[in-house]
């Protein structure tokens, strides 16, 4: 008797145990004017908290990968956890479950501490594919993905405009000045998704909304992750915000009267301002 021959390499690689983790930040609503407290931290109003708009693309990408490959999409959030609205919304969009890392000691954490915490949570989750947004709409740092990758000792493929998992590898495309760059890494790996992926994030489905409450959300503390309060929070922050000035949006206008030399002046203006 022959042993059954191994199946030909499947065209589409499906893995029912694949763990796709989407790191999602809860950010203040873009419709509400932002303000800073005396501690130079953003004033957060739980009822005006939304999914970081950049992360909507990431969640969509996670769900699309899951539809193709199988497995679970887990939403990972570090935050105060005063409202579960953004997490529930992500679950209503179709994610499988959620993990909230919340601990009073985390208040005031900088990007390094955030990366440290996320890395610990991702290790505990044994994530295969980790997806990040390109940045957050409140802080615009854009460095958490690389810091997390560093803590995990895993590859990060950044600013993906296309993500494809085949076999045990993830391959991305990234827009370059001319054309695009392709990069590949073995799983497990981290990928940050660029807004330019333009994947049309879905609306939560009505069924999703009705079942979101039945989906599990676990809450983990620092102790659950084996981390020390001294490594995180405002005390451990390497960076301190010392001031903030609103962007001046005043327009500079120059009106040129008379036709003589107008074209020349417009040309000079465009050159002076490095427009041409």
């Amino acid at each position: 008797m022959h042993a059954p021959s191994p199946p030909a390499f499947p065209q589409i690689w499906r893995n029912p145990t694949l763990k796709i983790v989407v790191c999602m930040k809860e950010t203040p609503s873009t419709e509400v004017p932002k303000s800073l407290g005396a501690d130079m931290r953003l004033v957060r109003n739980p009822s005006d908290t939304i999914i970081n708009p950049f992360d909507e693309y990431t969640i969509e990408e996670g769900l699309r990968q899951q539809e193709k490959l199988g497995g679970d999409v887990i939403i990972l959030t570090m935050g105060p956890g005063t409202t579960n609205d953004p997490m529930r919304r992500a679950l209503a969009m179709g994610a499988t479950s959620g993990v909230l890392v919340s601990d009073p000691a985390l208040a005031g954490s900088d990007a390094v501490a955030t990366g440290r915490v996320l890395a610990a949570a991702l290790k505990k989750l044994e994530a295969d594919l980790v997806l990040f947004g390109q940045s957050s709409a409140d802080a615009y740092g854009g460095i958490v993905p690389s810091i997390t990758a560093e803590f995990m000792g895993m590859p990060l493929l950044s600013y993906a405009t296309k993500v494809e998992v085949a076999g045990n590898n993830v391959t991305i495309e990234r827009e370059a000045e001319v054309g695009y760059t392709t990069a590949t890494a073995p799983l497990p790996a981290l990928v940050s998704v660029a807004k330019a992926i333009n994947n049309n994030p879905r609306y939560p489905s009505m069924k999703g909304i009705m079942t979101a409450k039945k989906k599990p959300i676990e809450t983990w503390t620092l102790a659950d992750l084996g981390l020390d309060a001294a490594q995180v929070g405002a005390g451990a922050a390497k960076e301190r915000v010392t001031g903030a000035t609103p962007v001046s949006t005043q327009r500079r206008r120059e009106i040129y009267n008379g036709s003589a030399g107008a074209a020349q002046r417009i040309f000079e203006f465009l050159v002076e301002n490095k427009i041409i």
Partner: protein
Amino acid sequence: MDFTLTDEQLSIQQTCRAFAEEAIKPIAREIDEKSEFPLALIKEMGKMGLMGLPIPEQYGGAGADFLSYCLALEEIARGDASVAITMEAHISLGSTPFYLYGTEEQKQKYLVPLAQGEQLWAFGLTEPGAGSDSGGTQTRAERVGDEWVVNGAKMFITNAGTPISGGVTVTAVTGKRPDGRNAITNLIIPTGTPGYVIGPPLKKMGWKASDTRPLNFDDCRVPAENVLGEEGNGFHQFMQILDAGRVAIAALCVGLAQACLDESLHYAKERKQFGKPISSFQAIQFKLADMAMEVELARLMYYKAAWLHMQGQPFGKEAAMAKLFASEASKRAADQAVQIHGGYGFMDDFPVSRYWRNVKVNEIGEGTSEVQRILIAKYLDAR
């Protein structure tokens, strides 16, 4: 008394508001101008679970409560009336009868694809000669062997002729009742049944992107099993269907009135005359205040009627009142919205001219205002 919406109700409301703003409003003018049924949009709404919102999960729906469905309709109507009426007619008139009166087999066969938004279904009650007098049905169905043979005509039937219309449930006279009155039965007629002729789309003043057709039945044969509910109980069934439908229409009207208020408030703040925004004139402020008050009143009325319905309590009177008040309030709102816009309000470039054309029919469909008043008076036992 607690008016707090549940997390699910809030979430459905917010999602529909965003969807109406981002996906419906931008195409509303074009589909109206072209009188074009928005097939792709309706399919997308089906995928989102909107077309089966209050139908239980076991039949392919989202399993939301009746108020959630009304909240969703209000938001969708705020985006566009044609889209909202397509959803309302499909759910309240087309799908609900299967859920309420269908056998398990009929539910699996017909309701599941409807709730999943793969098909639309129509309800054919009105006839060329029987409108407000809906019991005056002339369409007849005769039992021949194990088939029903249907002959007659229906008028103004919503959703009957779209590319995804699965069929229509019609009322037909199937004999006499012991009291000598006509026995009316609901029959399921799938699209494509020989003898079922769907007329060309009717040209309308408003709701132009919704599908409204005259239907003809010419020796149209369906199997005996295509009876929906009890034979001879059709009149009672559609009275029940229309009660809940009126609450949904009231919610739809609130959405239209809210859209009139939104546009008016925005415009009044931008438009300057005599060196000031017109919103600073008390005459305009009073119009806005009245509109806001009527929107709120109409909303409270449909909330209460929906609540009674969900509690399993009688709600027919409240449904008639909500439908009557909301439809008339939305007409007043549209009228004032055009007035606030001045000449621009009369132009197609501003949505309020479309709103004005769209509100009128709510005083007619699913029971005219006169019929609602007759009903309310009956509840008062005024004779």
